[in-house]
């Protein structure tokens, strides 16, 4: 069985983060609901996962339904359960909000590094951020990163 070989041969958690690849392969059957997977090229959170088989003596196939973690668009895929699927490396990081100008946020991480390349998100969350910046409140935002995309996805009060 070719596909039972290790897919995690470099299972070494001390390796640095700079060289981490955007995705890594996982046997389809060991994906789990609420986990992440690439569906049709989009990083998705798995919201539904069911299996089926063709005929009583057939092998399992996995039906995956996921929501794009940034756009919330729905994607689906079917895959034999022995096959590998790509899973995106998804990271979340909190930043302190320093400023907001022309739709872009100035954010500072806990090491003091600042960045100004992230847009204020759309919708209620964005409005809330604008309101808080305007009132001079000290607060943090959560930033989610996957593949080459990065977005502000949440607000958090400062924890002292």
């Amino acid at each position, binding site marked *: *069985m070719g*596909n*039972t*070989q*290790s*897919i*995690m041969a470099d*299972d*070494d*958690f*001390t*390796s640095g*983060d700079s060289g*981490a690849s955007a995705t*890594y392969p996982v*046997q*389809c*059957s*060991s994906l*789990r609901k*609420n*986990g992440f997977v690439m569906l049709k090229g989009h990083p998705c*959170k798995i*919201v539904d996962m*069911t*299996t*089926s*088989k*063709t*005929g*009583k*003596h*057939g*092998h*399992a196939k996995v039906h995956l339904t996921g*929501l794009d*973690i940034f756009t*919330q668009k729905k994607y689906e895929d079917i895959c*034999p*359960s*022995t096959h590998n699927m790509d*899973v995106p*490396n998804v*990271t*979340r*990081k*909190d930043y302190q909000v320093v400023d907001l100008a022309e739709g872009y946020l100035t954010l500072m991480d806990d090491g003091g590094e600042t960045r100004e390349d992230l847009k204020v*998100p759309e*919708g*209620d*969350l964005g409005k*809330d951020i604008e309101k808080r910046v305007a009132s001079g409140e000290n607060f943090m935002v*959560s930033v*989610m990163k996957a593949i080459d995309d990065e977005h502000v*996805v*949440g*607000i*958090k*009060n400062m*924890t002292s």
Partner: protein
Amino acid sequence: MMAAVGAPEVITQLESAAKVLMAPPSMVSTEQRQHAEHVFLSFRKSKSPFAICKHILETSKVDYVLFQAATAIMEAVVREWILLEKTSIESLRAFLLTYVLQRPNLQKYVREQILLAVAVIVKRGSLDKSISCKSIFHEVGQLISSGNPTVQTLACSILTALLSEFSSSSKTSSIGLSMEFHGNCKRLFQEEGLRQIFMLTMEVLQEFSRRENLNAQMSCVFQRYLALANQVLSWNFLPPNHILFATQNVTLKPTETWREALLDTRIMDLFFTVHRKIREDSDMAQDSLQCLAQLASMHGPIFPDESAQISYLAHLVEGLLSMINGIEIEDSEAVGISNIISNLITMFPRSVLTALPSELFTSFINCLTLLTCSFGRSAALEEVLDKDDMVYMDAYDKLLESWLTLVQDEEHFPRGCFVQPAIQVFNSYIQCHLAAPDGTRNLSVNGISSHDEEEINELQEDDRELFSDQLSSIGMLGRVAADHCIPLLTSLLEDRVTRLHGQLQRTQQHLMASSDLGSVDRKVLDDLYEDIHWLILVSGYLLADDPQGETPLIPSEVMEFSIKHSTEVDINTTLQILGSPGEKASSIPGCNRTDSVIRLLSAVLRTSEVESRATRASLTELLSPQMGKDIVWFLRRWAKTYLLVDEKLYEQISMPLSTAFGADTEGAQWIVGYLLEKVINNLSVWSSEAELANDTVELLVTLVEKRERANIVVQCESWWNLAKQFASRSPPLHLLSSSVQRSLMKALVLGGFAHMDSDTKQQYWAEVLHPLQQRFLNLINQENFAQISQEEAVKQEIVATLEALCGIAEATQIDNVASLFSFLMDFLSSCIGLMEVYSNTPETINLIIEVFVEVAHKQICYLGETKSMKLYEACLTLLQVYSKNNQSRKRSDATAEEDQYQDLLLIMELLTNLLSKEFIDFSDTDEVFRNQDQGTPASSRTVSAADVVLYGVNIVLPLMSQDLLKFPSLCNQYYKLITFICEIFPEKIPQLPEDLFKSLMFSLELGMTSMSSEISQLCLEALSPLAEQCAKNQKDSPLFIATRHFLKLVFDMLVLQKHNTEMTVAAGEALYTLVCLHQAEYSELVETLLSSQRDAVIYQRLADAFNKLTASSTPPTMDRKQKVAFLKSLEEFVANVGGLLCVK
């Protein structure tokens, strides 16, 4: 308001409203529709509408208005009963009956509604004996004898309406009276009225069955009376002094007064005659067979003695046989006939069955055998055709169930009388499930076999569950005829395995030549897999039972069979066959002198071996995961029963079985090793087949969950390899799904409690648990852990550890809880640290909480005081961190709500688990921890369950939005939790912070008023302990004020609203304690209600009723006796004036 308007205006108004309601949806607006509905509603509620209703009935031409007028009369009569003169009620009833008689062309629904009103009047009147049933039966009798089909139909409608009203079932109209009243009416009716209806019906059936030719109209009347007869025979007879609610599948248990009517053989003959006459009409046939089935279920005081019962049964069986023999059974008769048989087999005592003349009994059994085989074949055909309505399958199920009942009582019957029938039924079952040429599976009527590849989703149950009833019966019959069935299964299975082996080899050669999997014809393989599938299922059900929670025994029939042949058996050859699953059984010299029970197991092992070898030859793609499941399922079931058979449990034991599988035998050791290899092979080959991997790991758990088996398991080298492999997270075990990994961890931990010398034991734990701890500690203690924590490899390591912890908790047993608890506690505090690190990763947070849930779930009931406290503390810290991290957090992603829902559900589960200690506590003052906790004074109690739970509620409450309560599981868990809290810690409720207290009270109110009745009941149950708590303390607390509000709510609920009768008790208890607490407010509520009554008669009735309600409990005190008295009065109160007040 209606009264103020003249009759013509009212009619016009109603007729135009009816027009609106009857109009197509596109023609009228919602408002118009609502208005029209309101017109009818308020019309029906108007006071004494009798005159106007009569007028409407006589003049209006609009059917719907007539219908509403009939309804209004019915409702008003019940509502105003006590205010009406008996004579005017009598004349009203006469008016309605005449009205219907004079108008044969009325719409059916109008007629039925008017008759319903008549029936309700008769029933209501039977209480105060103001209206006698006799006159109505006399009238109906005359209608029947008129010979006019239309009039006879009408008579039938009247009788049906009476039957429904008096049956006190769901069909009965609710007239706001107590179940006591309904019960009394019913009891009276079943002695008199019901029997009159039955006799009238019998006359009609007699009459019709004599006629040669029935025209359509007459056979329609015939059908209605037959249905009526069925209703009478399905009457749920009330025993004296008992109020029963109608249940399904009522058996016939008439009272003594029915003897003359039902023991008359002519009655039964009449039903057989009727059935013969109408059996081709599928609708009527169902009724006539159902009547016979009810007669076949007859039991109770109607039989004066056993001989009466015997002759009744003999007559029934004779009638049945002569009905079945010589006819070709129609599809529509199958279920009915099997019901008759099933009823008589279940309901008649064995002594009565065996007292039948032996020739009659034999004919009956033969007939049953033939019917079963024939229904089985027809059921198989239905499956091939994929019919929606599986009548033969239902009938077959019923008959197989009857066989099970019979053979379970085998000792009452002549010895061996079921062997031949069992062989026939068993053979026909096997035949239906095997492919041609041996069997007929998938053959349609014309002999063509079909082979379709349908999509099967995961929700479809496995055959072993789906057909478990059938398989149990067939397995049982197989035991009865073990001499035939066990060797048959063995030879069929051995043959299929040999063929499968050959087919796989040929396919392998074919693949070497073409290497294209798509070119393989799977038909031959799939046919073999399906044959093997059924053979293994039947073998499993034959050889062993699967009782939940107790040790299954080797079935006595199987044991006796093995003992009986043990003298002809050569033990060594038997062991040789067992120990060489790779060889063809028939190639072993002397293979005919083997123990058949062991030989059948060996056949399954041979199947298993072919499968394992195919995986090693890289043919996994060609194998059937279904067959893989069947094999491990069988082996697990077998191992639970036969492996290390405990001789003490049996009176006598078969030598071959005890030599092969007994304690301290080579055979047992060999087979444990073999099963272990199988498990290890499956886990690496089948990681992608979740169900198969799951069944496999369950087999492993079975091997280690019993100490005796585990002792052998841990001696196997492969076990240690498995443990090391899993601990090091090396491939391929990490590919398994998380639930399988959990169970694997559970098995490995259970194995650790097997008997080993202390060095070995130490080494084992060093191999299994310590690496887990070590890897985990190394990781989280790294200086840069916070930075690398988001790396995928790190996250996976953490997730794997958390999953493993859940598995460890699952392995908890009373004798290992001490060490597992200490081990897990160390992790729990580290897990709390992880809550901080992963506060941004909801899926990890979820899993961390789950670890706590599992530990609490599995261990809290065994923990003594000090240990419990440690766990409470840990849980409290967990909740504090969770709360801190989630304060004013806002997330925009689509799954935020779902994540939160998951968290809350788990937290509530955790709290409920902690609370469960108040109900289930196995700890014997730290007995399981003896020698450990010495010197810890119990008084140093720092954290109590109440603290944790209330703190948890503090977190949960603000987050419980009404939207979240729309998730049913969350809603149930939430209300379960808060009711628990109110019941267990009522003293803590007043101490809650104000906000929290308010939302708790709001939750209770919401649950009481706008949730399902189940939740409403939970909330009501929470009120009594709160009120009792209040009574003990100061009278101006917020809780005191809140309970005053609840008094009003419960009062309104009980007195003014139509409520569920099931709720009366819970609501009554709550009301009583609240009344005790707020006597003045209660009097005020009563006063207000009374003063709003304008009608003096109603006022007096109400005032009397309220006085009576509290008479037995004045002044009300929280005393059980008084409370019970109050509840009793409340029932009367609701029956007396409940209906009166519902009218506004």
